[in-house]
Each structure stands twice: as structure tokens, then as C-alpha cells.
């Protein structure tokens, strides 16, 4: 196994540099200059420069954040959207580990890995947005816990969930490094990690929405309601699964050489089942949305410009993909399901951006638009994550088969 040689190569510096350069190449590739590398490396380098300016001169130097819009693209995209679309991990863990649907076995690891990377990177990106990041640990250690704050609860759930995802993924690490005894221990801990992971997910997915409960006077009444936390949880279920469908359709092309036969054979079948779960989740979501309209008596607002925008989000990006998911699952059409998944993802993105930017202070003439530098930093975060993702997929048994000694038992 050449994994062994990789590990020993790290031991001296020259070896390390060679090792590092070789790691930049896609596995099996001859050259560093692949299209992916050529596009992403300049963006990441530019992003790093912008991040240094941000720390040297303050948030105002690179962002369009203002006293009126204290939260911008970095919170709206990286945190709200990133977290919602990473929801697939806890949903599939529930279906696979708790309900025992064995057929999800081939994708469970890659989904957990995606979840773990999303949380590490997007929550990590939060540090860039914090004005006083050197105090960030005050949230976890110290004697001034703001227990009445939703954000306090979200921070803790966030942190613990990232840990539990790491534990869920750790057996793959152990298989890669050939640590049989560690692997046994880690495997025994999986169910515990999953149970806590689901609990923590419900808490923080809802909590991220719960943050906006305090912005009652600032969010358009069509979007503000006491249901925000519940709507965030529900939309993280179908948003997260749609993301799994979307990512799956891309990685099954890009990482074809790494895929086990089990993965290939089961992939379409799994996608069909996920489409049905999505449709179910979206039905509940729409029901809650109707309940909210009735409860808050905001029907009349639908015929205002903000109301049309609301309908674009709810009809265009929930009702229509719901119908497409059902139609696709019925006619067993992968194409239809993929379109539905993309529309759903757009819908979740719109919803989160609406709540934190567009319907936020809708009455104000001042608006927030991200600077190009904010966009580049966001891209940097996403692309760096893709680099790490590619590195791991190409080495560890994520979509490929586990080594012989670990076969058959990493089910449960």
C-alpha cells in the first residue's frame, strides 16, 4: 500500500516538500496544472491576501458591512446557507444508523465527511467575521456564559456537533492509517456520536433560525414568525438531502475511479428514496408556511412587491421542486430529480438570504451588497474545502471499499 510510504515520507523536511508537491496533484495524475488547480489556486491566494488586510485594518476595509447591516455575505452565505445545506449528514445518519436502512451504506461516509468539512470550514469562516476573534474562546471557557442567548446555544451545539461528526468519520481515518485497535474503539462509539449528532443538529439548525426571533421589528412580516426555528429545521432536511443528490451526481463523475461497485449499483436507487424524503419534508414545510400566513394574518401582504418575491421563493423553489421530486420518483427519472434538487438548493439559499439580508430592514432605503472581496473570501473558503475534500476522497476509504480487515463490520 502506498499510503504507508506517504506516512513515512513526512519524517524529513525534503521528503515533506516532495510529499507536499505530490499531494497537490490529483491522484494518479501526471501534472499539477489541472484545470481545477489553475482556477482555484489564484482565487485562494487572493483570498488569503484579502483576509490579511481584514485582520490588519478591520472589517470595514474589505466588506460593505455597516451599522445598518451588521451581518452580510459571510454570515448569510457561509454560516446560514452552509449549515442548512450540510443538513444531509444528520438526516441520513438518522435513516441509516437509527432506522437501519442498510441501502444507504455506500453514501453514508461521504455524506458525513461533507458534513464535517462544511462545519469545520463554514463555522471556521465565522472567525473571519468576528470583530474580536481573540475572545472567541470566551464562549466555551470562562465564567460569563450568556445562557439567555440563542447564539450561545448555537455556538455550543455547533462546536459539539463538529466533534461528533469527526467521531462518526474517524473509523475511515483509522482504516486509512491501518490502526486496527483504534478502529475498533471508534466503531463502538459511532452510535453514540450519531445520537448526539442528531440531537445537536436539531438544536442548532433550529437555533440558527432562532437567532432572528429577536429581529422582530426588522424582518418583513411575511418572513418573520415564531415558526422560524421549525422552518429552518424542516428546510435543512430537504435542503441537505438535495445537496447530497447534487454532490453525488458530480462526484460520481469526478471520482469515478475511486467508487466501489457497491456505490455505483446503489446510487440511483438511493437518490430515488431521498427524493421521496425531500418531497415529504417539503410538504410539511409548505403546511407550516400556510399555517404561518394564517396565524400572522399576512395574506394581504402577498400582493405587494415583497409578496411577489415571497411567492418566487415559496412557489418557485418549494412547490415546483416538490412536484418535480414526486414526478421524478414516479417515472424513475434521474434528470428530473436532479433539476428538482438544484431548484430546492436555490430555494434554501434564497430563503436564508431573504431572512438575513433582503427581507431584513426591507423598509430601509440603505441596502447591503457584498464587495468583490467578500465574494472572493467566500469562494476561498468553499474552494479550500474542495481541496481538502479531494485530498481525502482520493486517499481514504470514503466512496471506495474499506480494507479487507474492516469489511462487513463498519455497518454498525
Amino acid at each position, binding site marked *: 500500500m502506498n499510503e504507508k510510504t506517504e506516512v513515512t515520507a513526512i519524517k524529513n523536511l525534503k521528503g515533506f516538500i516532495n510529499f507536499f508537491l505530490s499531494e497537490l496533484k490529483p491522484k494518479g495524475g501526471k501534472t499539477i496544472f489541472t484545470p481545477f488547480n489553475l482556477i482555484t489556486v489564484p482565487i485562494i491566494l487572493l483570498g488569503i491576501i484579502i483576509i490579511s488586510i481584514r*485582520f*490588519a*485594518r*478591520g*472589517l470595514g*476595509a474589505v*466588506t460593505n*458591512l*455597516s*451599522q*445598518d447591516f*451588521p*451581518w452580510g455575505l459571510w454570515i448569510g452565505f457561509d454560516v446560514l446557507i452552509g449549515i442548512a445545506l450540510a443538513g444531509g449528514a444528520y438526516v441520513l445518519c*438518522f435513516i441509516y*444508523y*437509527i*432506522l*437501519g436502512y442498510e441501502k444507504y451504506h455506500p453514501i453514508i461516509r461521504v455524506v458525513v465527511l461533507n458534513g464535517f468539512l462544511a462545519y469545520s470550514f463554514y463555522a471556521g469562516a465565522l472567525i473571519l*467575521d*468576528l*470583530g*474580536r*476573534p481573540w*475572545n*472567541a474562546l*470566551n*464562549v466555551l471557557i*470562562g465564567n*460569563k*456564559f*450568556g*445562557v*439567555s*442567548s*440563542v*447564539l*450561545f*446555544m448555537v*455556538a455550543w451545539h455547533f462546536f459539539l456537533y463538529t466533534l461528533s461528526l469527526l467521531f462518526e468519520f474517524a473509523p475511515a481515518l483509522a482504516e486509512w492509517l491501518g490502526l486496527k485497535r483504534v478502529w475498533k474503539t471508534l466503531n463502538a462509539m459511532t*452510535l453514540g456520536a*450519531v*445520537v*448526539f449528532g*442528531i*440531537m445537536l443538529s*436539531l*438544536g442548532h439548525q*433550529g*437555533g440558527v433560525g*432562532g*437567532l*432572528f*426571533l*429577536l*429581529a*422582530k*421589528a*426588522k424582518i418583513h412580516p411575511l418572513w418573520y414568525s*415564531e415558526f422560524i*426555528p421549525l422552518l429552518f429545521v424542516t428546510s435543512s432536511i430537504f435542503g441537505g438531502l438535495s445537496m447530497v443528490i447534487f454532490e453525488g451526481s458530480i462526484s460520481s463523475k469526478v471520482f469515478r475511479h475511486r467508487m466501489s461497485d457497491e456505490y455505483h449499483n446503489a446510487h440511483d436507487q438511493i437518490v430515488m428514496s431521498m427524493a421521496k424524503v425531500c418531497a415529504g419534508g417539503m410538504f410539511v414545510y409548505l403546511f407550516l408556511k400556510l399555517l404561518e400566513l394564517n396565524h400572522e394574518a399576512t395574506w394581504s401582504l402577498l400582493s405587494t412587491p415583497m409578496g411577489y418575491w415571497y411567492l418566487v421563493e415559496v412557489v418557485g423553489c418549494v412547490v415546483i421542486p416538490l412536484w418535480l421530486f414526486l414526478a421524478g420518483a414516479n417515472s424513475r427519472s434521474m434528470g428530473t430529480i436532479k433539476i428538482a434538487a438544484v431548484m430546492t438548493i436555490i430555494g434554501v439559499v434564497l430563503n436564508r438570504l431573504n431572512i438575513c439580508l433582503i427581507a431584513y430592514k426591507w423598509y430601509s432605503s440603505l441596502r447591503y451588497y457584498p464587495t468583490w472581496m467578500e465574494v472572493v473570501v467566500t469562494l476561498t473558503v468553499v474552494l479550500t474545502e474542495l481541496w481538502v475534500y479531494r485530498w481525502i476522497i482520493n486517499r481514504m476509504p470514503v466512496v471506495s471499499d474499506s480494507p479487507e480487515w474492516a469489511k462487513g463490520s463498519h455497518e454498525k
Partner: protein
Amino acid sequence: MDRREFLKTIGIGIGGVACGDILIPSIVKAQNAFGGNEFFGVLVDTTRCIGCRRCESACAEINNLPAPNLEDRTVLGKRRETSETQYTVVNRYISKEGKEIFVKVQCMHCNYPACASACLVKAMHKIEQGPVNWETNCIGCRYCMVACPFDIPKFEYNSPMPKIQKCNFCWEKKVSQGQHPACVEICPTEAIYFGTRREMIEEAKRRIYQKPSKYYHQIYGENEVGGTSWVYLAAVPFEEIGFRTDLGTTPYPKLSKGFLTNIAVIDLVVPTLLLGISYVVKKMADQQENREEKK
């Protein structure tokens, strides 16, 4: 899971929901009194304000902020917000009768501050004597700015070591030493009046009773968002002079309290439920296997 265990789990769940409100320590304390003490308040009578803006310069002086140019009356031309270098500003409005009305703006020092309930490290907090103040253990997340219904906390975007800036009720330099806030001291027309909050409400009511035709019959801040330490009197309805009158009377921390209670319950009940389900599913799968083997 046998039946007894199942019932026990359900019981704990229902009990948890029922007790949630008792178990979670109340964040909301009684009006006017905080930890048993009456707290301070200020009454701003906009009918007395002449728009001299000396409160702005007194504020700048005591807080070491750039001094405003009082000669420049053009700033009154448009509505200004407080900023990270101006903890208070005076705005001019023209009433329907064409009269000038001046309104001083600063932190309202809410009885139940939204910013404090938003803060995850208690950097923003209301002290017993009334002022809502900021400490340096802040992490700079700016959730207080999202939460504040009056948009008061301001962030230093152009500093690598930013602070949250806002009116601090002159607590450290004045009020804690038995003096009045700088703006109150300098006001030439006694438009700003300092005392305990209860006294302020009483004084405001007395003024309305004595001159009912002079005042619009509302004390802004008496009940808004659960009451504020700074309260206002005016001759015209408050929405005409830049106040939000759609904020309601519910204390802001209550908006998220129900949700926090639910989360505590979810964190207790969900793991038990999940373990139960997984146990049952496994049992059923085993039984199925046994049956198939027997065949």
C-alpha cells in the same frame, strides 16, 4: 426497551415540557426594580428642547470623542443616527403646524435589553442601577446590533481591534459617583431630567395631567418593549418625530425564551427517543433473521 422503560421516557419528556418554565431561570426581572433596587432613569421632554446640541458636546467631552461643531446648524437638515463616535445626536422634525421639534437620541437602556439577551458572553449587560453597558470580553459577533430594536449599538468597522460603542449612561464617570449624566447636567432648559425610573414616570404623568393640551398623552418608553429607562414626552404623536411605535410591549428577551426552553427539552428527550428507536429496530431485525433461519 420494555414497557416500563418506555413509559418512563415519555413521562420524563412530558414532565420536562411542563417544568421547562420553572427549571430555566427567569431572565426577566420586575419593572423598575432590579435585584431589589430601584434603578435610574431619564425623562426627555421634547417640548422643552431648543436644539442647542450642547448635550452632544458634553457627551463627546466626557467620553473622549471628537467634538461636534455646534455652530453648524446644517446637520439638522437631515435625520442623523448615533454612531461609533457620537453616542447621542439631536434631530429636528417639523410638526404639522410648522413648529420645530427637537429629539435627542441615545441608548434607551431598556428594562429588559434585547442586546443583553442576545450577547453570548454577557459583554452587554444591564447593571443593577439601570445602565446597559458593554465589557471588553465581547467577541465582536454583532448580534446585539441585530437584536436592538432601536439600532443603538455601533461597531468600529475600521479598526483591527474594534469595540461596540454606545451611550453608557455616564455610569463610571458620573452616575456611580452620585452625579448626573453629562448631558443632563449641561442642558440649559431642563429638557433632560434625571432620577429613579419610577420618579421619571411619575413626573411625566404629572406634566401631562397639569398641561393636558400641551402633551400628546403617551409616555414613550413606559411600556414599549417592556419599558425603557429613558422615557420621552412630546407634543405630537411619536411616529411623527422618528420613533417606532410598532415595537409592542413584549420584553424582547421573551421572544426567544420559549425557543430556548424547547431546546432544553429537545436535548433531554431526543437522545433517549433515538436510542429507543434504534434498539427496537435492531430487535425487530434480529427477530426477522431468527425466523428466516428457522424456516
